[in-house]
């Protein structure tokens, strides 16, 4: 039995522009000391992310050597603060650690998919569908390509600890 899962490209043509970067770490991530409080108002955004800023947890920041700007990677999505200059060696600051790494171009790019229910599809029927999904309206699930990963930043060296300076808070 064959089953066709419709995979949809972004609605916009700028799908190609949205390039994701994969982080590879040698170790494990620990949850924060103080769990941020969840407010009851914390709703999910229509795209499934949590709207509330307090739900967000900072993961760290990546800097590139030749870069002035930095991106702040968050757990749920990435806030782009600038363009990635892929040339420089990346530096990740996470917690009290500073990790030096390198940017590696993946041999085969990855696609980042987002699963969508059929209901959505029916609702967004007007949206342009690349593949032949419309014919199979019975299928409830639709996969949407959110982004393409062509590069990964690999941090596999021994981390350097950073002393955090405390600031006076009156």
């Amino acid at each position, binding site marked *: 039995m064959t089953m066709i899962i419709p995979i949809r490209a972004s609605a916009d043509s700028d799908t190609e522009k949205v390039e994701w970067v994969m982080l590879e770490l040698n170790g494990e991530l620990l949850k924060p000391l103080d769990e941020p409080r969840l407010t009851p108002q914390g709703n999910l955004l229509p795209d499934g992310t949590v709207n509330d800023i*307090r739900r967000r947890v900072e993961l*760290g920041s990546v800097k590139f050597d030749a870069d002035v700007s930095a991106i702040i990677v968050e757990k749920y999505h990435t806030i782009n603060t600038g363009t990635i200059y892929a040339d420089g060696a990346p530096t990740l600051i996470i917690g009290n650690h500073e990790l030096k790494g390198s940017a590696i171009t993946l041999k085969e790019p990855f696609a980042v998919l987002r699963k969508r229910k059929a209901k959505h599809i029916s609702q967004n029927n007007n949206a342009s569908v690349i593949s032949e999904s419309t014919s199979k309206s019975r299928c409830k699930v639709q996969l949407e390509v959110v982004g393409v990963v062509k590069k990964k930043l690999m941090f596999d060296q021994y*981390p350097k600890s950073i002393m955090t300076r405390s600031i006076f*808070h009156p």
Partner: protein
Amino acid sequence: MEATGWRKGGSAKRAARDDDDDEDEDEDEDDDDLDGGRAREASDTTNDGRVGGSSRGTSGGGGGDAQLVRFLERAEMNVLGRSWGWRGVDRRRDDRRNRLLGSRGNENVSGNDRLLPRLGEGSVPITLADGTRTYVGRTPGATGGGDAVGGKKVPIVENVEGRQRGEEGCLLGVPMSELVRRADILQKRAIRRKVEREARYGKASIADDGDNEDGEGDPDVAHYQAATVENDNRPSDDSPEGRNDEGGEISFHRRTRTIEKKRREQKSMQLQQRLWVDKHAPSSISHLLSDERTNREVLRALRAWDPYVFRREAPSRPAPPAYPSRYGQHHHQQHGNDGKDNNNNNNNNGGGRYNQGRGDQQQRKRAKDVDDASDGRAENRLQRIDVRPDESSRVILLSGPPGVGKTTLAHVVCKHAGYRAVEVNASDERTGSALTERVVRAMEGTTIDLGGAGGDEGERRRAGKPNCIILDEIDGADAKASIAALVDIIRADVPQPAGSSSSSRGKRGRGATTPYLRRPIILICNHKYAPALRPILPYARQFDVQPPNPERLTGRLRAVLAAERMSVVAGGMLLRRLVAGTGGDVRSCLYALQFASARARELAVRKREREGAGKSKGDNDALMVDISSTLMATLGDNGNGMKDMQGDVSSTVATVFRKGKAQTQDINRNKRQKTTNGSSGKKASLPKGVDVVLKVVDHFGDNSKTLDCLWMNVNRVSYVDPTLDRCCSAFEWLSAADMYRSHKSNVAMNNSAEHQSMQKYYIPTAAAAIHLLCCVETRPDLTFSTRPLSDCHYQNQANESLVHRFVEGLPPRTRRGIGIGTDTVVSDVIPYGLWLLSAGEGKHALSRPVSSVDILSAEEKLAFSAHVQTLRDLGLTYVKDGGTYDYKNPNNLRLEPEIDKLVKFEFMDDCIGRKEIPSLLKELLAHGATVAALRERESEVLIAQQASASREKDKQKPKEDVIAPAVAEKPPAVTPNKGSNTSVSNSSAAKNFLGFRALAAKEAKSVRRAAIVGFDRSKTMKLSNTGSGVEISKVIRFKYQKGFTQAVRAPCQIEDLL
């Protein structure tokens, strides 16, 4: 002549006199009584005829003070109030004395100048018998008198008038000796008047007459007069000069002698009422009953003071009594400018010292001066260094059982060595300050020389004696303070004069502040090892006064009986029994004898009256009364009347364990009675043995000792006890009795009269019970050594104090759980605590000797920290055992306090199988405990700080709560998480001290450090290193893992996609 100086202190002195009145009687009587003894003593010692002329113008030493007081009073009353006609007599006597002195040598006549007062000299200090001081001042105008007697015959009346007009504040214009003579004359005149009146009115009672005439109701006056009459007239009769000069008084003397006789009779009647103990007290050292060698040694110890007090070498062995010569030297100092001739005269002239005087205000200094730094020459010889006896024998301590004659010995030795005994009794006020004051006063003063005019050795010996202080019963109540004060005095050094010997003035000016010992002190006590006496023992020459030799005592008792005109037909047997019964207690012997003789006399008189009523009372005295029957009655038929059971433990205990003769039947009858008639006649139903035992134990007196002996013997005696019931109940009885005996039993019971009485009645009762339970037919094999018991007692005390120390060392939190009594500690805490502190078994055993904690395994580390915590909780630690050297492990460590001793038994060798921790590890543990202790202390301080801080926070807290919702809207990254902080600190304070205290301490420490640096750490925060402004605590952390990690490649199933 004005007596203002005297009157100034008049009221005080009168008060003193009132006090003296009581003593007067005694002293006067003593004079009579002791006169013979004194004469004996004098003849013993001086071996020449001095005694004959010794007592002119004065009574004996004892009566001297009283006489002085009376004399002064009289001087006020008579001499001052009347005309000065007596001067004529006085002049006559002066002439007589001149002649008398002239017979000795011509230069002596000129020495008479000294008898009269000089200008500008102050006054004479007089210390009375009771220690009060009087000052007798003199007018400066008295100088004229000096010329008067020198043979120039200047009309004295003029001088007297001049004196009357003279300055106030002065008193007697003449020396004391002069005044004494005047008083004598007045006395004689009064007696002459009396005799005349007697001749006129017939044989009226003289005593009444005297009282009437004097206008005083005081009967002492009669005694006084009698004493004076004796002392005055006897020497006058002896000396031919007196008869020649006072030829008109011969008939007077004859008449006075009849009066004297009557008085003596009267006095002897009074003497009969006195206690024999006082009446027959030994008066000289050869009469003492106590051991002669002790007497000699005491005397020698007292003589060690001679170089200081009398300015002469101490005799190497007891020698005839000393004659104080220091007054002459003192005189010499005062008049050093007068020339050598005068000085020599003065040295011969004992009374001359009254010629010098200064203002009243100088009295103290002067008295001191007499002692410290008197004559330049004498000083050169003797006073350079501290010639007092060595510090280790400055005071004399006499100890011994009551009634052996310690007090008597002290008094007699004092007298013999030329001192005057000043006794301070336990009944007197003996607080430290009061005692010091009295001692100092007694040391400064001296008895006054009332008859110094003659320049005669005998007189001088009698008067002018330095004081010797006798502190009787110093081991009495509140002795501690007074002993401490005394030790201070003893230890004080003589202030050394700074200048040369000639600058005695300078010495006088300084150093009168600290009292130091200037006169010997004799301390008397029963037990010299009383705790209160401990501080003074190093400074005291100690003598044990032994009970007198029984033969000697018996002989003395016989002599006393003979003197009392009593006889004991039964011979020495009764007396010997009496002596043995009292254990050599002279006092109780005499009491018993007197009691017996009084009864015997009474019986004899009654018998005599029955036979013939015609006998006069006077014959009663001559009657020889036999007291053997009454003495027998006093002693009791079997000698139990006296305290004769002393030291007889063996018989007491034997009575308890030995079955009486008719006792078996008694018990049987007793049983029958009990069964037949229940409670009737319970007293009668008691077996006879019980009565005997009760009585014997009661007589024995030392209940504690009895009880000890019972304890020791109750298991030795083999009584019939197949079921051990008797043994059980016997021990129950003894334990109950022991409870009443032990002084530490209960605070409430201790010291209470109830407890005392319980002890008194319960122990004999227990003895009786033992008797009923355990008595045997044959003579039991008894032991009287209570050494094992006392060892046990000592060990018990040591253990108790050990437990006490352990409990005191417990930290408060542990002590709270233990409760009050130490019983729980001993039974529950210490054994299990020691179990916890043993090495243990298995993986957690602390049995490896390691030198560092790091080597220990995790389990061992756990055990280690638990062990340290146990040590801390029990307040224990390990210390090096310095006392015993164990060859197995040389640096053995033991627990401190050594509570393991409490549960260690010699005969049970490690039966529990505890394993000892190796000493290396013990050292580590001790170190750990020390560190833990330090930490605890620190954290306690911090907790206290925190508590105060949290209190402040609590004040602010409500505010925060109000603000909190508003803050909630702000991003949490910026909000300092204060609420959680406080909750953490609160919970840590509330929770167990173990886990969270360290956290809290750390927190508090950082707070404190921040405070030092200048800002509060709690008000700071750390932001993320990324610069996003998020608090670092809310950022994901990363933990690096070494080595190769596989990428996370989770298998994905198609269902996940659908």
